[in-house]
């Protein structure tokens, strides 16, 4: 088991943990955080797994970089939606 495969395995553990947190927590903010960390686990798998086979691979790294930017903006949009929902009288922890 090389160090890069180890990265991918840790990514899988992170994804599983955040699936658990996403399903158990009721608060919308916690669900958003869990979803975000799930994305980080996917990024870790995406970078670690190809490195295991062919060494440092710029293609998945560029894709992950794209994914990080999309994840950041989607999280910001989700926070805007969440705040608007709470200010409209919604309960964040139904």
């Amino acid at each position, binding site marked *: 088991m090389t160090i890069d495969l180890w990265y991918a395995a840790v990514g899988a553990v992170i*994804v599983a943990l955040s699936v658990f947190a996403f399903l158990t927590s009721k608060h919308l903010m916690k669900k958003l955080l869990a979803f975000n960390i799930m994305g980080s686990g996917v990024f870790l798998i995406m970078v670690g797994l190809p490195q295991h086979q*062919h060494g440092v691979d710029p293609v998945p790294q560029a894709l992950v970089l*794209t994914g990080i930017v999309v994840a950041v903006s989607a999280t910001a949009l989700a926070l805007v939606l969440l705040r608007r929902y709470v200010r409209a009288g919604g309960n964040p922890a139904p």
Partner: protein
Amino acid sequence: MNRTLRIAVAGTVALGTLYALLVAILWVPEIQVNLPQQVALNLEQSGIAHPITAVLLNFRSYDTLLEIAVLLVAVVTGLALRERDALTASTEQARDPMLHALTRRLLPLLLITSVYILWSGSYAPGGAFQAGALVAAAGVIARLAGYDIASRADVLLRLGLALGFILFLTVAVSAMLGGRPFLNYPEGWAGSLIFLIEAVLTFSIGLTLISLFVHAPGDSSPRGGADDD
């Protein structure tokens, strides 16, 4: 559904996910295409010396173009959800002299660093996204210190948000006028065009993240919800 049952179900689902992912990772089929080798072979034609930037803006520039489109959609939705009174509120509370002094010294530093990172993207790790994130950080700090940059120029803001996507799309489509495929850079111009696109993308990404932060609804929630656990 009561709490114990929910935890049990979630635990089962999480363990199943972990098992499936580990099986997929440990018994992955051998990939026939050697991507790093192909990138290294074609790096000279891309006009960029750094492989990741070359992949982002030349070999797989379609991804980057669509990513900017996603960012634009996100910020348009965010702007549609803003509140009218949220802009003027809570600027008065940030009259802390220490914060002001720190911000005035920090902002030029952040902007210079972002320009350096943008420039270094052509031969070292760096590029439009990292530089855009730094620009956004500078904007957030300025906003927290009470400077109200983004809400002063509304039309300019919208133009700036769309500028990255417009320029990228223009370059991509103008290749088709010369009979080349979509998103194909002309010979010898690739390096300069990529740098131009990256510079405008930095501006637009920074502005997008800033305006998602600035135009977020205010934080005075009528009632906070408590979690069950």
